[in-house]
């Protein structure tokens, strides 16, 4: 039975890859990336063989604990649980619980994260191959550690399954996850500084961790190598007990989950609140705008970018404090304008097959384009204005304001026009409605990359006049060019905006059915 479950998992994996060659490419890229990380870690662990026992023990225990923590936390917050062997699908098959648990646990090893963890864990055996006993202890520790990772992940995902099935939790966790992702640079720098400032403290920390379920299995090899067999024995007992307790918890949770499927009901709510539909003009374009704005607020795939924008100045300012020059803040407004304008370039792909409503109602292409662009403009314009003025106020170089504004507005208007054309013509692979913003389905990677790259190139060409004027002002120091830039950015930008709306509208009407057929592929 265990072998059956493993074979099932492999078959599912192979058939999934067979469905589209691009999925194979995606898997290969992810695999290469993982391979790089794994290779680095393995080399580091092999090199640690020659390091002092304390340093090696500290590194292995800290790394191992981090891995266990990662397996517990990441599947929940990223809602990226691997559900190929979802226990709920086996309810009707009457598989003995013990065999099912073993099969599912071993099945968790198949896949990139499982393989990577196993390989890295096994290389700790090399680190402790300073004798037969330490190596054997490290091997036992590695096996226990990896199984703890897998079973802990299963316990956490099973326990939170009904929570994770609720839409609200998914939305909020996706947004919450966005914040550390954006602030990754500052966080890593901060942690790095913290570690280098407290190297003396780390071995102590590792020793403490090694008594907890997180670090106990990873400590076995080091304890034996350092001649602490008594401690190693206690930690072995801790590890085995923890693994057993986790498996028992998993069994209980699974037994309960199998008879009580996740319930994601929501309370009844009477109507009467049209929201933005009641506020904006009751025209097709106004309705599209209201719908888009509602999505910007309610759909984490959109509101993700809204969370990122206020964090941008934080990241750039952080760089400023480290380098001492705040020059990069000059890019704040133009970059935000670009991100926001470009964010609607995949609007139809984000609609997915819901786009059929636009097609079925026969809404004019121009109304569709204009509504979406105006929705984005509603908050993009204030953001760009605030960032431009904020930067100029911060650096007290008020003469730079017109140029900065002209350049940023030029990018915003031109970008919105270009996005309106791009999204009417090309579809790209984006997370599906209701999925986490991080979960890109396999799809036409080639076209996605080409559309992004060529689109940005075209945008660069289109805003050349504004960029040139910005450079000329910087070289000559003449404010006149700044004012000129403001005029060009506004007038040329709006002209290109309207051109984009009209062209995109025409293409949308001509190729609506083809567009729907393309998004249907990514269903």
């Amino acid at each position, binding site marked *: 039975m265990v072998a059956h479950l493993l074979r099932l998992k492999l078959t599912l994996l192979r058939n999934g890859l067979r469905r589209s060659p691009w999925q194979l490419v995606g898997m290969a890229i992810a695999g290469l990336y993982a391979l790089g990380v794994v290779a680095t870690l393995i080399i580091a662990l092999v090199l640690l063989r020659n390091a002092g026992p304390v340093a090696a023990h500290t590194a292995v225990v800290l790394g191992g604990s981090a891995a266990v923590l990662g397996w517990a936390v990441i599947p929940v917050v990223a809602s990226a649980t691997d559900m190929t062997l979802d226990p709920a699908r086996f309810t009707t098959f009457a598989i003995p619980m013990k065999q099912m648990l073993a099969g599912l646990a071993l099945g968790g090893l198949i896949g990139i994260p499982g393989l990577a963890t196993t390989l890295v864990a096994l290389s700790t055996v090399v680190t402790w191959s300073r004798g037969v006993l330490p190596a054997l202890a490290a091997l036992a520790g590695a096996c226990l550690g990896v199984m703890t990772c897998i079973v802990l992940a299963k316990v956490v995902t099973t326990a939170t399954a009904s929570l994770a099935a609720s*839409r609200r939790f998914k939305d909020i966790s996706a947004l919450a996850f966005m914040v550390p992702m954006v602030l990754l640079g500052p966080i890593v720098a901060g942690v790095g500084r913290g570690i280098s400032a407290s190297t003396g403290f780390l071995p102590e920390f590792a020793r403490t961790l090694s008594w907890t379920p997180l670090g106990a299995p990873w400590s076995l090899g080091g304890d034996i190598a350092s001649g602490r067999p008594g401690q190693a024995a206690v930690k072995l007992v801790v590890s085995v007990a923890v693994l057993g307790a986790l498996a028992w918890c998993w069994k209980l949770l699974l037994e309960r989950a199998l008879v009580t499927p996740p319930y994601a009901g929501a309370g009844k709510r009477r109507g009467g609140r049209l929201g933005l539909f009641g506020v904006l003009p009751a025209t097709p374009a106004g309705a599209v705008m209201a719908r888009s704005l*509602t999505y910007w607020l309610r759909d984490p795939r959109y509101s993700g970018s809204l969370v990122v924008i206020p964090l941008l100045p934080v990241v750039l300012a952080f760089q400023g404090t480290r380098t001492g020059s705040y020059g990069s803040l000059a890019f704040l407004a133009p970059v935000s304008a670009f991100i926001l304008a470009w964010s609607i370039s995949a609007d139809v792909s984000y*609609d997915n*097959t*819901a786009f059929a409503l636009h*097609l079925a109602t026969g809404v004019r292409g121009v109304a569709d384009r204009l509504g979406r662009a105006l929705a984005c403009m509603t908050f993009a314009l204030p953001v760009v204005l605030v960032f431009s003025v904020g930067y100029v106020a911060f650096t007290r170089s008020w003469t730079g304001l017109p140029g900065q504004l002209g350049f940023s507005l030029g990018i915003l208007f031109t970008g919105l026009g270009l996005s309106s054309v791009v999204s009417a013509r090309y579809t790209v692979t984006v997370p599906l409605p209701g999925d986490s913003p991080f979960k890109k389905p396999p799809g036409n990677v080639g076209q996605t990359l080409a559309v992004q790259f060529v689109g940005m190139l075209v945008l660069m060409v289109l805003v050349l006049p504004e960029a040139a004027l910005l450079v000329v002002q910087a070289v000559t120091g003449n404010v006149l060019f700044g004012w000129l830039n403001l005029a060009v950015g506004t007038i040329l930008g709006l002209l290109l905006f309207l051109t984009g709306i009209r062209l995109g509208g025409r293409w949308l009407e001509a190729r609506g059915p083809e567009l729907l057929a393309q998004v249907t592929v990514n269903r």
Partner: protein
Amino acid sequence: MTAPIPGQASNSSPVAALSIRGLAKRFGGKIAVDGISLEVPAGSFFGIVGPNGAGKTTTLSMATGLLRPDFGTAVVHGVDVWQRPLEAKRLMGILPDGVRLFDRLTGEQLITYAGLLRGMDKDVVAARVGELLAAMDLSQDAGTLVVDYSAGMTKKIALASALIHAPRLLVLDEPFEAVDPVSAANIRSILDRYVDSGGTVIVSSHVMDLVQRMCDHVAVVAKGRLLAAGTVDEVRAGASLEDRFVQLVGGHSHTEGLEWLRTF
């Protein structure tokens, strides 16, 4: 074959609510629809039946302007769907099967959106939304996001979105799937009244019993081809529609094999 020749029912009469000619579609190497011609008389309650994968959804998508046909034409009340799509779509209310909805809107917002997209007046939309919600028994959940609806409720809200502009032709792909019996009865009485007052309804389904009771015309489709079309009585030719359907499609394997199923 005693069934009428496809498309003969009312040959190219000017009153045809929907007239499709030689529609064909190929997906890669698979021919999904292989030249279907059909006349749907105005004021009829028209059922399209066929086994899974027969090409019902593909045919209806091509007839309603959602999927461009490789060959053939579709004409709604004299307006060519693929030559003058915007005009043709004003005449049609469409409930496609297997597409998502803008499900982060509330039910009320979604119907309003469908009305406003069609350029309807705000007050008319508001009045009709209230009535449609009541008719679909969704007033209690009008403010709930569609993503939190059950499958049946989602079907009903999509149907309401297709009705809001009072179309002359309704094309409903599997409208009763997952809908509870009470709601289904309500919807049927709405559709009956709609047909009585001159509207035309096309439904696809594989529930033969339902089609036999509800529709006055029926077309049988299998493997991308039209096997029979006409009034329900013409097509079923004295037998029940279900028996006639199985006979036409010819997929009944009777009781051969599976003997072990009776041995326990």
